[in-house]
């Protein structure tokens, strides 16, 4: 590990100004569950580490226009246990609980969870080329081990997936991310925070260097009270998603009034399934209609040599999750494993 300086910021101005003094080498530190790991692997080499967990962003509170404002330093376990989240946005609590382990969720922050890096094995191995780690060095995953990687929105330069479960739920809910940069505050919508790889896979998000996430806001969304997260992984718990679905459904008299669907484990971004939502709204709430909607979304899928299994897996998971929401069956909000 490269030598670095460690400082603990007490307010956002100090953090942002600290970063601006060392823009080449500075990084913010949340819980460290991703960054400390990457530093040990030699993937991240900050010269200045700015601890932002003591900033006054550790509360979950009602937002001015209704909805919920979640501080960026709120720990993942605290957010999952928050009564308002469990009642009004169960998909978010379930997504959080489906990720990592109790110890890690106690450490991990909301800001760090959003900005965690891909789990692509080549990215984490500094002896291998990787466009995301070293721009222009190539992408060995295209021809190599890509069983767990993207089927949607990838480019020849990078086929990695975004690993966060929480971000999939936030994408379905249409959350906004509040950011403090050198030019002041701005609001970035989800979807829209993360970007597709294109020919710049080294950039995971639309944020600029030095941008500090201060909060995430959930809009008031009635149908979110009936929402659910489903995750398929290789082990029963404690593994990243092969495919996951976050969904909310408002169906009455056999018809879909409104819905929200996002997919995890399939793309470089948490993937909002707009085509599927479009197909469903105003139509019948039948399994056939759910399947047709899933197919509408997955028509754009371009699986790689070894990850074609994700297409039918995503389709079945969408159908099953929507059917459970319609019927009120399946595990309760806390259950993440199908």
């Amino acid at each position, binding site marked *: 590990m490269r030598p670095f300086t460690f400082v603990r910021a007490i307010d956002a101005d100090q953090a942002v100004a600290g970063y601006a003094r060392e823009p080449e080498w500075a990084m913010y530190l949340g819980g460290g569950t991703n960054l400390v790991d990457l530093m040990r692997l030699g993937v991240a080499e900050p010269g200045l580490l700015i601890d932002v967990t003591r900033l006054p962003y550790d509360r979950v509170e009602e937002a001015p226009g209704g909805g919920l404002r979640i501080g960026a330093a709120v720990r993942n376990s605290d957010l999952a246990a928050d009564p308002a989240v469990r009642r009004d946005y169960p998909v978010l609590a379930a997504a959080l609980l489906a990720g990592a382990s*109790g110890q*890690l969720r106690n450490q991990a922050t909301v800001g760090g969870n959003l900005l965690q890096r891909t789990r692509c094995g080549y990215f984490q191995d500094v002896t291998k080329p990787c466009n995301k780690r070293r721009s222009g060095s190539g992408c060995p995953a295209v021809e190599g081990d890509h069983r767990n990687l993207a089927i949607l929105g990838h480019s020849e330069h990078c086929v990695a997936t975004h690993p966060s479960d929480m971000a999939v739920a936030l994408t379905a809910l249409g959350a906004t991310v509040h950011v403090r940069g050198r030019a002041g505050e701005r609001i970035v919508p989800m979807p829209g925070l993360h970007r597709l790889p294109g020919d710049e896979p080294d950039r995971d998000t639309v944020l600029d260097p030095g941008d500090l996430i201060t909060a995430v806001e959930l809009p008031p969304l009635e149908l979110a009270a009936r929402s659910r997260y489903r995750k398929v992984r290789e082990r029963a718990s404690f593994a990243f998603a092969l495919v996951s679905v976050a969904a909310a459904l408002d169906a009455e008299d056999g018809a879909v009034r409104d819905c929200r669907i996002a997919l995890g484990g399939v793309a470089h971004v948490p993937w909002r399934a707009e085509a599927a939502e479009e197909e469903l709204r105003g139509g019948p709430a039948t399994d056939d209609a759910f399947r047709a909607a899933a197919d509408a979304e997955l028509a754009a899928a371009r699986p790689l040599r070894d990850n074609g299994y994700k297409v039918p897996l995503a389709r079945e998971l969408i159908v099953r999750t929507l059917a459970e929401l319609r019927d009120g069956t399946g595990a309760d909000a806390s259950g993440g494993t199908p």
Partner: protein
Amino acid sequence: MRVELTVNGEPQVADDVWEGESLLYVLRERLGLPGAKNACEQGECGSCTVYLDGTVVCACLVAAGQAEGAEVVTVEGLADGDALDPVQRAFLDAGAVQCGFCTPGLVVAVHDLLARTPDPAEADVREALAGNLCRCTGYEHILAAVRLAAERGGEGRS
């Protein structure tokens, strides 16, 4: 850098800590507390589980600087003098210890679970211990130890 923290109720000062050290390293190598184990250093095995300001974390992924001013409790801090904590006692009585490498982390994780949920359902136990890997026991004896500790109730449990 210097790191001042409270460990098992005692104020501690670690000098000449290198920024890149983890809390786990500080505990084991600088403060002479080898209870928390160092196995994967990637957050995957839970053998380094300690309390940090009241919640259990993987000490291998906590940067030393982040422990400044913190209250840490390690497995060494659970026993009351020579009297084992009821969770430790239950692990012995249930035969849940083979090579013992995973045990300190598990004991801390179970201690935390029972403090929050004195009578956990099996699903709660499995979920709470998902971050603790054991290569020897196949978990049945560990689950039995948790049940035993829960049955014996809260008396004496700190």
